[in-house]
């Protein structure tokens, strides 16, 4: 296999990893605070639609991004209302968010654009373009490192770099700030936070809103950077894959980077080599495309060692005597 192809695959992995990474970190904030969020998928979908629709109408991708984040945060608040304020079942609320998004995006899309639930194709200012890092062209001819810099590191959209920056940022917030300490505490033992005189409800809402913002970025990336417009169900289970990656990463930011990269890599390999010949057998492309999902099942079945979720996860907090 030659060097250029390796670079292409890795480049693809980085692009495909980005929405997973945003969503995985979104889930990380929420679940670390004790709110399980199966609705990452729905929030991404809603954000993808809102971003593409607003970008198509206004021609400005940044307005699209804002709309995407707004739509996702709105769904996140809905989930928060159900699971924090009304102490409902977090899984059911998350599933409801997914259904709501799946239906609403197609309905609104058809009503607004009459394209069968799609948004018009985006181009120019209505879509995130590649960012060329300084000296990318001049350094291209340097052996080995030149192509790595020019092909692999440079030339992504701004959201790819933002996602990568979110990893150390999340680590820093969680483990070096007061907010992070409280966030982790509220997911482990909310009573400890409550008796310390800090509001459990407020902290959990903050976490849920951050989760909404990150899901918004993930969705907007899908429809306005990775693709050029929204199509129905375009998240294709990425929200669930992000959840699997989160478990794989054991709710830690750096591990989340690794886990989502693995999923991105598999998707990139499947895209680059739809059919692989192993002597007499040709591995069908369907199998290659199914790889990330197969990995998800394996991870969720617990083949990656014990992953201990935040102790208070999934349980509404009820103050006891």
């Amino acid at each position, binding site marked *: 296999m030659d060097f250029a192809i390796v670079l292409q695959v890795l480049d693809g992995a980085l692009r495909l990893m980005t929405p997973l990474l945003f969503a995985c970190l979104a889930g990380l904030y929420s679940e670390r605070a004790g709110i399980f969020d199966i609705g990452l998928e729905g929030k991404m979908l809603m954000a993808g639609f809102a971003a593409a629709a607003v970008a198509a109408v206004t021609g400005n991708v940044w307005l699209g991004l804002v709309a995407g984040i707004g739509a996702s945060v709105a769904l996140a608040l809905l989930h928060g209302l159900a699971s924090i304020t009304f102490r409902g079942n977090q899984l059911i609320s998350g599933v409801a968010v997914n259904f709501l998004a799946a239906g609403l995006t197609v309905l609104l899309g058809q009503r607004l654009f009459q394209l069968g639930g799609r948004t018009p194709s985006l181009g120019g200012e209505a879509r995130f373009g590649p960012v060329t890092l300084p000296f990318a062209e001049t350094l291209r001819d340097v052996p080995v490192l030149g192509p790595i810099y020019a092909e692999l590191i440079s030339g992504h959209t701004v959201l790819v770099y933002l996602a990568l920056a979110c990893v150390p940022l999340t680590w820093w917030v969680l483990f070096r700030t*007061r907010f992070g*300490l*409280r966030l*982790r505490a509220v997911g482990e033992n909310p009573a*400890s*936070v409550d008796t*310390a*005189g800090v509001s459990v409800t407020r902290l959990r809402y903050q976490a849920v809103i951050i989760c909404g913002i990150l899901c918004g970025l993930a969705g907007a990336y899908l429809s306005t950077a990775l693709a050029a417009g929204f199509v129905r169900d375009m998240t294709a289970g990425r929200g669930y894959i992000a959840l699997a990656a989160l478990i794989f990463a054991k709710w830690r930011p750096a591990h989340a980077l690794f886990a989502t990269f693995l999923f991105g890599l598999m998707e990139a390999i499947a895209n680059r080599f739809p059919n692989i010949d192993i002597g007499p057998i040709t591995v069908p492309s369907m199998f290659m495309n199914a790889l990330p999902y197969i990995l998800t099942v394996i991870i969720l079945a617990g083949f990656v060692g014990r992953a201990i979720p935040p102790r208070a996860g999934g349980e509404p907090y009820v103050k006891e*005597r």
Partner: protein
Amino acid sequence: MPTGAAGGAGVPQTPPAIELRGISKAFGPVQADRDISMAVPRGTIHGIIGENGAGKSTLMSILYGFYRPDAGEILIDGTPIAISDSQTAIRAGIGMVFQHFKLVRNFTVLENVILGAEDGGLLRPSLSRARKELRRLADEYGLDVDPDALIEELSVGHQQRVEILKALYRNANILILDEPTGVLTPAEADHLFRILRGLRDQGKTIILITHKLREIVDSTDNVSVIRRGEIVGTVRTADTSPEQLAEMMVGRKVLLNVEKAPAQPGAPVLDITRLRMIDRDGVERLRDIDLTVRRGEIVGIAGVSGNGQTQLLEIIGGFGEPGATLMGEIAINGKAIPLHGYGANGRTRRKLGIGHVPEDRQTEGLIMDFAAWENAVFGYHDAPEWQKGPLMDNAAIRADTESRMARFDVRPPNPELAARNFSGGNQQKIVVAREIERNPDLLLIGQPTRGVDIGAIEFIHRQIVALRDQGKAILLISVELDEIRALSDRIAVMFDGRIMGQDHPPDTSASDLGCLMAGVSPGGAPMTKGTGA
């Protein structure tokens, strides 16, 4: 009966650290606290004692801002204050050590201490200040804890110290402890009281909520007794006696010593020979246990929890740890019973006439969300009198439960109520009634009165003695040495999976038993190890 504030020690010059005036609180139709008034002088240890459900915890929750009182006012250092939330209570200098610790298990001690009391947005400065402060507190009060240890690595006693440190770090002047010794070993409890006396001598005010008379008498300056939501009286501890306090708590004289005729032991019912148990992890939990319990006697096993008593009781009862290896022999009425496989479960053991009151009624004795009448037949639900053709005769079970609740004075006597809604003592009565009324040959009973109020303790003790007098064999396990000594006809001591003699008379002194429980012979020399396998 003495009433009024803090004994007759004369009018204090400074206002009391904390004063309650006419505090009342109702939950729906239930009046939890009624017109509670008391004053706690600065620099004293003040005990609040009362039966379970008397309203102690509600009162403390009001002080810590969990509930707003319906009426009355709270004064801190003479100034009225409205405690609307925990933050206000903390700012007023009130620190609370809950019965169930409010710690984050996978955080370090330092992180737990600063949680909610951070100095700023970033953790580093708070952590280094807390580290210095903890060192100072450790020196000053003997509150030694490794600041970098994770909570889950600490013993229960150390976790409690972290809770105290949390309060002191927030500059608490008034420290409230709710049933602080419920989870501690006797040695840990002694250490706690040394710490508390040190804190008092430095001018801190301490409120100790408990239902253990011994602790009140040993460690408090004044004590308030609460009964049914009302203050019965506040007295100087030095002027009172355990008997008087007990009487104030329940409103009538209680027998701290169980009255019973001398035992008349008959044939052995339970005969254990060289029983060994090695658990799943390869740890030997029981080492060559030899134990006999005869008809008409109560054998008590004393020991610090975690020395194998739990395993022993569970193995006899038929629900030993899965995956454990058992060796040796257990005979019931002279017949060896299977230790493994079919025949070694709770159901077959019950059919052999073994009744079992497990140590933890909430997880093993009852299903908390099921009704009392359902709980009243578990384990015996296949008895013929409760079958009606292929169905269960629920009406018969309900009727039976109702009459049983009357006999055992379970309150409220409502068979439809879920087990969760009864107080600890009444839950225990349901379990004890279930096991005793099946008329077992051998009754296994673990921690019969843990978390049970005095009135119920007395009742349960009388039932156990009555069963003995009918010629039944009783094996009792309790961490309360007083209970073991009061009930047992014979005392066995367990230490490190071994029986340190099973023929200690009930009047063996507590200190001698304490030595045996620590693996030391009463003379002071370490006991010789058992003969080994």
